[in-house]
């Protein structure tokens, strides 16, 4: 059964009747089927009004569930979103960016989801709606593991909520893959840096594709506070990244991922420092 409700309420009711597979841009949904037939009940979000908003209200950017990567890449957003917008330009190809949604990227919960590290550094939360109401979860609490989220089967992710960081925060996103474009990340790093009076006031750093879920690096973040921005790269030490648990696969060995993550973090910090200067 292929459901295309036009309101969120109908959509939530449909999920109460019976579980259904939710379809947004379909760029994870369809490839994941491989050569199996599609699931018996599909809930298509494309007709639902009110899920395509992208606006800042009261210091919070609300990214509706149907907002595509292309829209993020083109949106006039403050510098703290530069990292997210850089990620938007590196997800798949332009064709993918035109149909694929950020929300789909989060719900799919791949360890290599490019949207997760920048949103983790932005302290984003997700809004989940069901016929019994709406709840918000911090992104880190929503993502539970490889392809595993805290979403209940009757819930729809309706928006991503991102508090806008201070206007002088700078951010960046770096992705490393085996080729230059249209590539699944071997490692990716997002950094958000606030500098005041020549000293780091806060640093938020997240690394993806090196553990089942992308993670923040609190030890490293703490170590950078108060440091001079120009010195940041040299302060990063291997033990700061001990939270990572990279795997070896066809793309790279675990050791490679650890080394490359270290370098990418240093590079991202230098890049943010450059942007701040």
């Amino acid at each position: 059964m292929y459901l295309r409700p036009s309101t969120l309420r109908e959509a939530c009711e449909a999920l109460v009747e019976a579980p259904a597979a939710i379809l947004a841009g379909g760029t994870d949904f369809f490839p994941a089927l491989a050569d199996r037939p599609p699931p018996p009940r599909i809930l298509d979000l494309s007709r639902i009004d009110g899920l395509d908003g992208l606006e800042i209200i009261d210091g919070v950017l609300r990214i509706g569930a149907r907002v595509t990567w292309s829209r993020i890449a083109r949106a006039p957003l403050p510098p703290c979103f530069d990292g997210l917008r850089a990620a938007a330009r590196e997800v798949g190809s332009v064709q993918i960016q035109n149909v694929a949604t950020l929300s789909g990227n989060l719900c799919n919960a791949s360890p290599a989801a490019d949207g997760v590290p920048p949103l983790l550094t932005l302290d984003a939360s997700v809004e989940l709606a069901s016929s019994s109401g709406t709840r918000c979860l911090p992104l880190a609490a929503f993502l539970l593991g490889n392809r595993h989220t805290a979403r209940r089967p009757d819930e729809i992710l309706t928006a991503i909520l991102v508090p806008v960081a201070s206007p002088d925060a700078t951010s960046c996103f770096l992705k490393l893959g085996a080729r230059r474009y249209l590539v699944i990340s071997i490692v990716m790093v997002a950094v958000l840096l606030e500098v005041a009076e020549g000293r780091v006031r806060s640093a938020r750093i997240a690394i993806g594709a090196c553990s089942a879920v992308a993670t923040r690096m609190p030890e490293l973040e703490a170590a950078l506070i108060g440091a001079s921005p120009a010195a940041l790269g040299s302060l990063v030490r291997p033990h700061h990244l001990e939270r990572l648990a990279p795997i070896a696969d066809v793309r790279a060995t675990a050791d490679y991922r650890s080394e490359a993550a270290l370098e990418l973090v240093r590079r991202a910090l230098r890049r943010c420092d450059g942007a701040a200067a």
Partner: protein
Amino acid sequence: MRFDTPATTNPIDQLKVIGQPTDRIDGPLKTTGLARYAYEQHDVVANQAYGYPVGATIAKGRITAMDLAAARRAPGVLTIVTAENAGKLVKGNFNTAKLLGGPEIEHYHQAIAVVVAETFEQARAAAALIAVDYAEEAGSFDLAAARDSAEKPEASDFGGPPDTSVGDFAGAFASAHARLDQTYTTPDQAHAMMEPHATLAAWEGDKLTLWTSNQMIAWGKADVARTLGIGKDKVRLISPFVGGGFGSKLFVRADALLAALGARASGRPVKVALPRPYTFNNTTHRPATIQRIRIGASAEGRITAIGHEGWSGDLPGGAPETAVNQTRLIYAGENRMTATRLAVLHLPEGNAMRAPGEAPGMMALELAMDEMAETLGLDPIAFRTLNETEVDPENPKRPFSQRQLVECYRIGAERFGWDRRRPHPRQVREGRWLVGMGMAAGFRNNLLATSGARVRLGEDGMVTVETDMTDIGTGTYTIVAQTAAEMMGVPLESVIVRLGDSSFPVSAGSGGQWGANNSTAGVYAACVKLREAVAQRLGFNSSDTVFAEGEVRSGNRSVPLAQAAASGALTGEDSIEYGDLAKTHQQSTFAAHFVEVGVDAFTAEVRVRRMLAVCAAGRILNPKSARSQVIGAMTMGVGAALMEELAVDKRRGFFVNHDLAGYEVPVHADIPHQEVVFLDEADPMSSPMKAKGVGELGICGVGAAVANAIYNASGTRVRHYPITLDKLIGGLPENV
């Protein structure tokens, strides 16, 4: 037409149409979507049904039970064919494993059933309901582990003898001033062409028509007839457009057989396309190799001993990936040996992929040559030039028909700025990038094969060429039209080309870079016949008749060409057949590949910055489509060097990364600048066209040029392809 003495001056030499960088005549059809590929033949027969394949999920063993009941009851299902109800099937001459397996399973994803239904979705849904029980058997899936059990394969036309030996290799190597003894490996690789294997099959009584995607129509027709046990005259193959093959469509594959069987069982025309994962494990691939190379040289750098041994694996009854053949021909040296060994592996079938044998062989040999040059303290070009040969080194009485390899090096070095290369590695740094240059020789033989065509001059003055030759995206339509236009003295727009139909004269087909030269030579032969018929009808003396500007001229008479057909169309049909010029002379094509790379000093990311190929390959029939062939091949060579590898699950025996997300090939952004230069050549030994192939020359050697550039940049020598980031990072300066 027999071609057994070198070509003299002929109408092709005018080069009014041939040799011009003409746009593809089929381009507009492709860019507007009007070119019909096999799966898009929606209206050639009515009432088409859809077949969906079922593949084995074990690598080796037997089916113990197969429950079709639920699938049979599923909506829309018309029939299900398995080995049990398919009737007697004989394995095709070109197949190693059966195209329809069961109860015995020979490899993972071997087809074991096809479900035919009214719609694609119904067929796919029903296929998922088939339950299969297996008795799984242990298999051999690891080439390195099987290496010691490898045996001497039989000699073959394509692969050559398993052992060759000239002089005293062992003695000369032992006493050489400088020695290299290294082992190199190349992984299993996939063709990864854009269009998957697909076929529409329709029976009319006992006659079978297949609209399919196939490079070699006559081979395919014969193998379909053999497999089904019907006469060849009962089978017709139609393959006007092929969305890439790279060798994977040289042979009949499961899509064709399953469609034919499904159509026979359902009484309906049936379409089958292999789902993308099946194109990796159900079809063929380029087998992995282990190669040991030994080179001995004198102090001044002359090779005194050269040895190349290659190991690969295949299913029982299969053939080796012959990686050693170029080493028999490319460099001088009095003492030589090669050996090819074949192990049994129960992975999917290994077979030809673009420059089979040569591509992986050159990846190893040209890397070894770079290492040896360094050992000797010689520039890689100087070392190669010193060991240049004008004759077949195994048989000095046999010269090359032409060999301008040194000229390729010279022109390439100049254009590329080779003199700026630092002989020692890791000398150039630009920011975080370590920059280096590498080069390699490209070398691929020119193969001759009989090829026929039929050319008709219509009453309207249009010239129509028909041949079962295929255009696999290479530009065949265009060069065939150019040949006929040149021969008949008409503009390109007056030529219609019809390809890929087994009701047309048998051609050489597309493979082994033999298509262009042979198929156009066949068209040449047919045009010679047609010219005679035209002259005869006009009462001209055929020996001095000139065909130009739409006219036929003889002495002071001149008549529009169309007039010759005014009283009825005229046809010329012939084929080119070769004498022993290829035996008396070695015919090969040559290239010098140059590559510049940047290697990230911290993460080891490799970025190709510039590539140049200088090619000597006889007459270039169409510089535009030839260039496209070479840059495509160079790109594939970058893939082989940097990322392409089928990952083997050594417990279960299959290729894990069986889609284009897992099997990464280069993208445009990886290849910023490619240049191709063709030497102005014509080889009178090759055919009346004086042309040779280029489609595989472009991939031979280029992978090693990338590897050598990486070494020059980073100082790390990787001998195991692909050169992924993790193999480089340990040796980087920042990590020492």
